[in-house]
């Protein structure tokens, strides 16, 4: 992967992967930082990335592993400034529905949440989700089924509370 190809890949996929990791972990800032770090590692290991069948999956998996590490969370407070992403700016505030969805996702077991995000947000077919997560397709189907049911119940509860 040469510089131009990497730059195109980065520009095209940064926001998308960040959104997916955000949905998985429920923390937008952490998702953005981890995706940024994952892209740095991607360039450092670009020969490995060239051999990867799905470079975007490689970056997403790396970012996700960084994000879920408790260790990483503990060092956030003292990370050198040059490792941070670029300056933030405000845009439209998230809707109530969006906040409710993120809150509901966070209440799901991690494995169900990961399966739902990869299948429904990253739009990966079940066999690709299974390959990325490293479990059989049947397991992913079960996680999706249970995850959808749990999510529907959580959103219904939230809707009931907001109407009450």
């Amino acid at each position, binding site marked *: 992967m040469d510089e131009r190809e990497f730059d195109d890949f980065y520009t095209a996929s940064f926001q998308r992967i960040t959104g997916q990791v955000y949905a998985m972990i429920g923390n937008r*800032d952490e998702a953005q930082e981890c995706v940024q770090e994952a892209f740095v590692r991607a360039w*450092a290991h670009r020969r490995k990335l060239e051999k990867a069948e799905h470079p975007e999956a490689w970056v997403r998996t790396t970012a996700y592993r960084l994000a879920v590490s*408790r260790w990483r969370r503990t060092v956030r407070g003292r990370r050198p400034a040059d490792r941070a992403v670029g300056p933030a700016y405000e845009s*439209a505030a998230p809707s109530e529905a969006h906040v409710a969805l993120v809150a509901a996702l966070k209440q799901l077991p991690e494995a169900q949440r990961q399966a739902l995000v990869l299948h*429904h947000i990253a739009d990966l077919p079940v066999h690709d989700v299974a390959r990325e997560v490293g479990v059989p397709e049947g397991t992913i189907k079960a996680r999706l089924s249970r995850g959808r049911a749990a999510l529907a119940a959580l959103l219904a509860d939230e809707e009931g509370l907001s109407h009450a």
Partner: protein
Amino acid sequence: MRDPLDELENFSTPGLTMNPLPATEVRRRGTRLRRRNNALAAIGGVAAVAIIATPLAMAATSKSTDTTPPPANPSPSVTWVQEIPADFPLAEGLPAPVRTGSSYESQVTDVCAGWAPPSSSEVRQAVFRESEGGSSHTLALYPTEREAELALTALGPETQACALQTVGKQRWVDVLPDQGDQGDQSLVYVNHYSDAGDIDVVQLVRVGNAILEATTYSNGVPAEDTAALVKEQSTSVVDAMCVFAADPC
């Protein structure tokens, strides 16, 4: 009632949007990371050649049947540092706040017997604790490089034996492949000690007569990735350990 699938498929990331770094900056940082890794690998490679070459040279001139490893340092004139400098950056890489001390207390749940410094040695420890675990750096000085080398050399087979004995058990040990790019000698192993996936990664690195133990707790992250993070965070300390080398910096 809202359809969860519609909600998911229309998921977006509104609100605070961050401006990602320019691609050129990402590549610059990636290149810097790669150079650092390569430099460490080169240093480790030279040290490994020295360690391998010395026994081979001795084997060529001696019929000794002694099974203990020959000394890595052929020079008897080296004076090994016996005091850890006051400004040694042992806490470098650990999250704040760090508690430091001059005695050793194991910070990991060892499935089998692990490393501990000799009782009479100069020891310093830096520990970060949180409610569910933590990270630590412990540095111990041995009287000579030979003694430090023997201590770490002996621990390798013991840990391998522990790994074999604990296969299939609820608590087990994995010895990770030696990447040969840390100090003069290194050993990395993982204690898996709960059904919930709790692990303690232990990385031992020797430079000259000093051994650094770097540990961290993790859960939900593959052991190899956690070990990579331990290595990354201890790099500055290992670099600073050159003051204990036969040819100090």
